[in-house]
């Protein structure tokens, strides 16, 4: 897999006015909801510390915890499989479907299954995967793909959704009231839930101590997929483990508040093997590597594996909120995508992603597991430069570093820039810089260097 370069994709997406408008409204709303429910907790920082330290412990003992998880889950009646990569995981799911003579599975939204393109793998094996999250259903019906971790169809408005439903699952629907649209999907999917022979899910957490799998969701489709079909397959990235059941007391506070800005999401399901007379009687868990051990090898970059996919870093990111998720050209968008994707698939295949950031640090501030995204970005930029061996870029970065190091040099540089930018600045923005800097402004408007710097304004006050 190779992703299209961020600048080219971003230029295209920046032109999409609808996308930008929806995205801005959505990310602003979630951001302020998050801030409100986080402020309610007097011990938020202590929870973040605990979350980050528990995840560090998981990575330090990953091999041991995976075996512990496997033992506990097996003892509880689950079948545990291991997959080195996406193809292997896909083949396992397809084989289970074939063994049960299943040609249709219901599926809960999962970035992990998107990452391994499970739906395509299943389609090749003659199995149709029905996406059951409201937003995923929209994308599937439209042949589109996700632009946000949590609200994947954030770039579609109600009228567009109504028109899509009228063409596909609800001929004749005229209302674009969200309640009516939700009802249309309820009716369409209910029938499929009730007849499903096999469910497929990702997982938010796996508990090593007990072999428990945990899915956090809002709509109830997760509960449908993980309790109604007689056979359930859950794909668990190996980094999703938590050592002990009680660790949930940390993560079930961090995740909902960070992701949807709720004190708690409507539904959290936890199952431990098979329960007689309740839920699937055949349970499979696929432990997936697919590049995660590669990430683990990098001492600085491995903290990306702490990620609990809450999407808080997307909503605060000045780059993401303007370009949207498609510009990143990868399953994982936004700041986390910029550090995770290049590490998962190799920096040489996504070398522009670590540059899709202004290094403003807002992502680190909100990250519930304290991933130092700016630090990892800088580290990966150095890697990318090394991989390309392009000395001009390295030289530029070195000059930038040298300039920022000294206050005097920085002041001087500002003065030079103020003069040099004059031919390019319009209304306070620099839209196009001449080569060799044109690459920087192709999909960004650069704020012009102010006539008076903050420091000189402050000094002369």
């Amino acid at each position, binding site marked *: 897999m190779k992703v299209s370069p961020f600048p080219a994709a971003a230029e295209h997406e920046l032109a999409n006015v609808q996308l930008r408008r929806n995205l801005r409204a959505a990310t602003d709303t979630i951001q302020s909801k998050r801030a409100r429910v986080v402020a309610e907790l007097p*011990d938020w920082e202590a929870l973040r510390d605990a979350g980050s330290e528990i995840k560090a*412990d998981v990575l330090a003992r990953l091999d041991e915890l995976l075996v512990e998880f496997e033992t506990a889950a097996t003892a509880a009646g689950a079948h545990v499989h291991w997959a080195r990569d996406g193809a292997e995981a896909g083949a396992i799911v397809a084989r289970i479907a074939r063994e049960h003579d299943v040609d249709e599975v219901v599926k809960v939204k999962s970035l992990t299954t998107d990452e391994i393109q499970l739906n395509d793998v299943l389609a090749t094996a003659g199995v149709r995967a029905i996406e059951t*999250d409201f937003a995923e259903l929209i994308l599937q019906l439209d042949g589109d793909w996700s632009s946000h971790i949590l609200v994947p169809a954030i770039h579609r*408005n109600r009228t567009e959704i109504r028109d899509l439903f009228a063409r596909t699952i609800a001929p004749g629907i005229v209302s674009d009231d969200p309640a009516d649209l939700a009802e249309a999907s309820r009716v369409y*999917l209910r029938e499929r839930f009730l007849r499903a022979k096999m469910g497929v899910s990702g997982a938010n957490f796996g508990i090593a101590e007990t072999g428990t799998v945990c899915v956090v969701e809002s709509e109830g489709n997760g509960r449908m997929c993980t309790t109604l079909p007689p056979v359930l397959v859950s794909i668990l990235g190996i980094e999703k483990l938590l050592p002990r059941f009680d660790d949930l007391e940390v993560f079930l506070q961090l995740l909902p508040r960070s992701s949807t800005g709720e004190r*708690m999401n409507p539904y959290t399901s936890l199952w*431990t093997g098979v329960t007689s007379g*309740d*839920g699937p009687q055949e349970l499979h868990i696929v432990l997936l590597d697919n590049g995660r*051990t590669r990430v683990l090898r990098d001492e600085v970059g491995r903290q990306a594996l702490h990620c609990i996919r809450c999407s808080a870093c997307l909503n605060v990111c000045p780059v993401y909120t303007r370009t949207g998720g498609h510009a990143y050209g990868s399953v994982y968008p936004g700041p986390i995508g910029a550090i995770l994707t290049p590490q998962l698939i190799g920096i040489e295949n996504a070398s522009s992603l670590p540059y899709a950031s202004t290094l403003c640090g807002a992502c680190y501030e909100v990250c519930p597991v304290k991933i130092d995204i700016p630090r990892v970005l800088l580290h990966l930029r150095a890697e990318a430069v090394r991989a390309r061996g392009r000395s001009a870029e390295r030289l530029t970065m070195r000059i930038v570093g040298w300039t920022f190091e000294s206050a005097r040099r920085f002041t001087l540089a500002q003065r030079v820039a103020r003069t040099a930018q004059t031919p390019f600045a319009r209304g306070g923005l620099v839209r196009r810089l001449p080569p060799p800097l044109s690459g920087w402004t192709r999909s960004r408007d650069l704020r012009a260097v102010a006539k008076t710097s903050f420091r000189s304004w402050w000094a002369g006050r």
Partner: protein
Amino acid sequence: MSDARTEVLARIAAIPREPAPEPSRDYRVSGERSADEVVELFCTRAADYRAEVVRVDAAAVATAIVRILAAHGAQRVGIGPGLRSEWRPAGCELVDESALDVAGLDRLDGAITGCTVAVAETGTIVLSGSPEEGRRALTLVPDLHVCVVMREQIVELLPEGIRLLGPLVRSEGRPLTLISGPSATSDIELDRVEGVHGPRRLAVVVAG
């Protein structure tokens, strides 16, 4: 070629890693509110996420349920096989869920259950598949879920709740469902819509 399990474990084992220090746990693990305040907080928070909340004396649970069912026009209602008799409402048809298949559950107007624990700070009820709660599908497929919460089941903080649930999972592997308000989506321009696939209405009867 080695098998995937051996190879993944070997890949990890080959990576030098420092042991991590014991994680700090300086967050709150027990609440400071009085019992009355905890019940009050639970009711407010559950209502905040659009659950319908009523508070009654322990002796008046069945009557409260009758009123809720009537308000929703629910006639045929599923219950777990062990739902205590004093909670069983009069005047409607009660069906033991263990006798129903999924299609049968789909024809019910609602479900009545107890719960295992409730968390005030997040407005959450937790079900663990006891005979009083029935199997997971009972509170998922019908459109109305009426849940009875006894005041002594309410804890203030999530860690208090999780620590009560741990033993059920460790010793019996009980499946858990944490419910905070009715099913919802915010996928259409971030407008919250109640009731996508789970019950569209959640009524909580707080007893005692």
